[in-house]
């Protein structure tokens, strides 16, 4: 059982470093992962951060964009006199006012210049640098977090949806399910299936998990085939798990690749994202106060609107943070500006900080993971630099 061995080994590593930092020992040695909760949402397709949080206070925006991201004049909600929230994210305004919503406007992974969605997402989920070819990056960073989390069990983390989430794949056991799926077979068929799967590790692992989860009667949400309802169903399922033993949940939302008619295509995606966050808040109830949501995308989009009322693949992107645990109602990190000389390669928003640093600090503050572990193991070779203090 490599996972158990790995787990024991990493527990020993943590033991050492915790001994060197005695002020952390009480949390580090806790036998359970604690009460804090982390939700990581991958926004597949590259969300245009300049449209989500519109920097209408930057005079250059008007020169770059004519039909999108024009600020409060076009119905966006003013946040701080400089940034405005996209109209379709309007239902999140009360969260902003309550300090439960924040954004980092110009972040990125180390991935540069080829601007491929698929490599970009692989690197975002792997959490590594660009030294490994994207196809070779098998482990996800949430899995490496689990490998180093005292008291973590397979239920500690869940990936949700019908699609595989690489961010959670790796040697530490974790759960994976889609709330729309059911499994009803006779006890004898179940017995025989378990027997024939024994020789095939992939099928064996999947079947054992499936049988265990399906037996729990999770009162599955009806899959409707409609993205809005299915996304909310996933959020509901995540909240139900997080209200029990689960502390980390991850899933993805598609639909961000807005090359054309962005005003129309992104409106729906924003509404879906807002619905997901509000569902989490409602269904988590009191646990919302201990929850941090990070919504990340592979990269941003061009600062300039293209010929089709959309935007092309860019570099610096925006991370959205939400939850009762965060110190929100503010922009976090630096804003590069949109003047010609401020742009990356003369076209994209300049990334000001590695997106992994934010995730690393959130994990340190939520789960008391030592900085050394985060910089060496979870995100190899990352320099976390100073704490952006996402959490309250």
């Amino acid at each position, binding site marked *: 059982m490599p996972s158990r061995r790995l787990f024991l080994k990493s527990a020993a590593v943590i033991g050492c470093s915790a001994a060197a930092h005695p002020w952390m020992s009480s949390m580090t040695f806790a036998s359970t992962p604690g009460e804090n909760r982390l939700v990581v949402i991958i926004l597949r397709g590259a969300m245009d951060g300049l449209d989500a949080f519109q920097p209408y206070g930057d005079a250059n925006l008007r020169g770059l964009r004519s039909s999108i991201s024009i600020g409060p004049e076009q119905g966006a909600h003013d946040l701080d006199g400089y940034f405005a929230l996209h109209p379709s994210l309007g239902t999140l305004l009360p969260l902003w006012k309550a300090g439960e919503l924040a954004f980092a406007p110009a972040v990125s992974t180390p991935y540069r210049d080829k601007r491929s969605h*698929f490599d970009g997402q692989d690197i975002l989920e792997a959490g590594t640098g660009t030294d490994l070819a994207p196809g070779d990056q098998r482990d996800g960073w949430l899995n490496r977090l689990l490998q180093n989390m005292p008291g973590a069990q397979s239920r500690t983390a869940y990936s949700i949806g019908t699609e595989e989430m690489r961010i959670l794949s790796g040697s530490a056991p974790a759960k994976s399910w889609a709330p729309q*799926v059911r499994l009803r*077979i006779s006890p004898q068929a179940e017995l025989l299936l378990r027997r*024939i799967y024994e020789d095939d590790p992939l*099928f064996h692992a999947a079947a054992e998990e499936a049988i265990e989860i399906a037996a729990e009667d999770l009162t599955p949400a009806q899959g409707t085939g409609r993205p809005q309802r299915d996304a909310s169903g996933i959020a509901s399922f995540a909240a139900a798990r997080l209200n029990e033993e689960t502390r980390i949940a991850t899933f993805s939302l598609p639909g961000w690749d807005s090359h054309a008619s962005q005003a129309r295509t992104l409106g729906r995606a924003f509404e879906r994202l807002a619905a997901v966050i509000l569902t989490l808040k409602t269904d988590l109830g009191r646990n919302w106060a201990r929850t941090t949501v990070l919504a990340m995308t592979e990269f941003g989009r061009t600062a300039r609107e*293209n010929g089709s009322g959309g935007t*092309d*693949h860019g570099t610096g992107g925006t991370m959205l943070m939400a939850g009762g645990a965060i110190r929100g109602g503010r922009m976090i990190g630096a804003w590069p500006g949109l003047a010609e000389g401020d742009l990356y390669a003369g076209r994209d928003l300049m990334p000001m900080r590695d997106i992994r640093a934010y995730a690393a600090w959130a994990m340190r503050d939520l789960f008391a993971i030592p900085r050394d572990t985060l910089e060496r193991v979870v995100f190899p070779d990352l320099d976390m630099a100073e704490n952006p203090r996402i959490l309250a």
Partner: protein
Amino acid sequence: MIAYPELAAIRLGYGLSPLMAAPVDPAQVLASVAGAGPDADAISVASISAMQRDLVRLRRRAKAGDRKARAQADDIGALSDRMIALAQRREMARALDAPAGFGERLVRFWSDHFTVRGGNSERRLLGVSLVDEAIRPHLGGSFADMMFAAETHPAMLLYLSQQGSVGPNSRFARKRGGGLNENLAREMIELHSLGVGADYTQADVRQLAELLTGLRYHRDRGIFDATRAEPGPETVLGRRYGDKGPASLDDIRAVITDLAARPETARHLARKLVVHFVSDDPPQGLVDRLAATYSESGGDLAVVNAALAQAPELAARFREKARQPYDFVIAALRSLGFTGRQLLDMKPGVFQRGIIRPMALMGQNWGAPRGPDGWPEAAHSWITPQGLAARIHWSAQVLPRLHRVRPEPREFLAAAFGDTASEPLKWAVPRAESVRDAIVIALSSADFNRR
């Protein structure tokens, strides 16, 4: 040692069937490629644009109060919805009925390589015609021809946002403004030809995007509009295009021919084929052989298909691939003797609830892959707890209602697996408490879900 017919049916086709013999040799496998050309029901761009023109005209008259025009417009709308639903089933029916399914598997492979996805009914119909007009005719032809047909097909131009890409110095832009859209150019290099690992830069993407301006679908005026084309020349991967005379479709054909001939393209396509047909961990020897075959033949897919159909790695790497949900559903139906006719006769609601929805739960929302890179290949992308549960549940609860046959379990094992069933499976099937459970166990087994 697995016999060639079983190997070919399971690895290169859609599985064994009690209704037809498996192909006995590579020649029969390759004959199925010719058999997968467009059929009498093929949908053309010309017919779709004619239909859309009628629709626009009728809707205009309807708006002015013409009741008859409104009824006719509604009829055309309903007709196009029926055509889309039918096209989806038509392709499945061909896969169900194909004795050696290699041709139909190649249709799926190349349609996935040149992924497009829907939108409104016109765009979905165009997606169907891309398969009929750009993929099926070229399965055993030149890759450059297939690539040109796919890249310039209206469905691709719409899906990869080429419609709005205007040369910044074109006649059109000088009067009405507009700019480039890089989407098609990027995917043409990254996904359709060289592959993302190849040595190209953002400048190549940009230059190709400039060269592609002018490509635009218009119902009446075709796919090229010179007024939007950026004045040349452009340099893509070190070669100059468009320096002779005004911009034309010939420049675009030239760059596609050159992209198709690149050694990186040979390696990228060879690797993709081997990953799809042989193993997630592709044997390098076969990848190199197919790439060499491709290059030496000048990108002739017939020669590449032949090399693949004869590869000894098919036997050496048996069952290293997981069947994707589409492949699994077709193979399951085939193993029970379900015919294409029966599928075509299914009521629309039954087809949705019995085939399309279950496939989405297995992880494959048919017709809607998450991006232009198509469906994932790796077994672990599909054999997840939820994905496997959805397959088992479908076999147990849905399939028996679609097809009420109860074959004798041992006969079923022989029909579905030939001599390839593993010992544990042969042990387990007779121990099921009902015929129904025996089929569930066989169809849910790793043996059946791998190929």
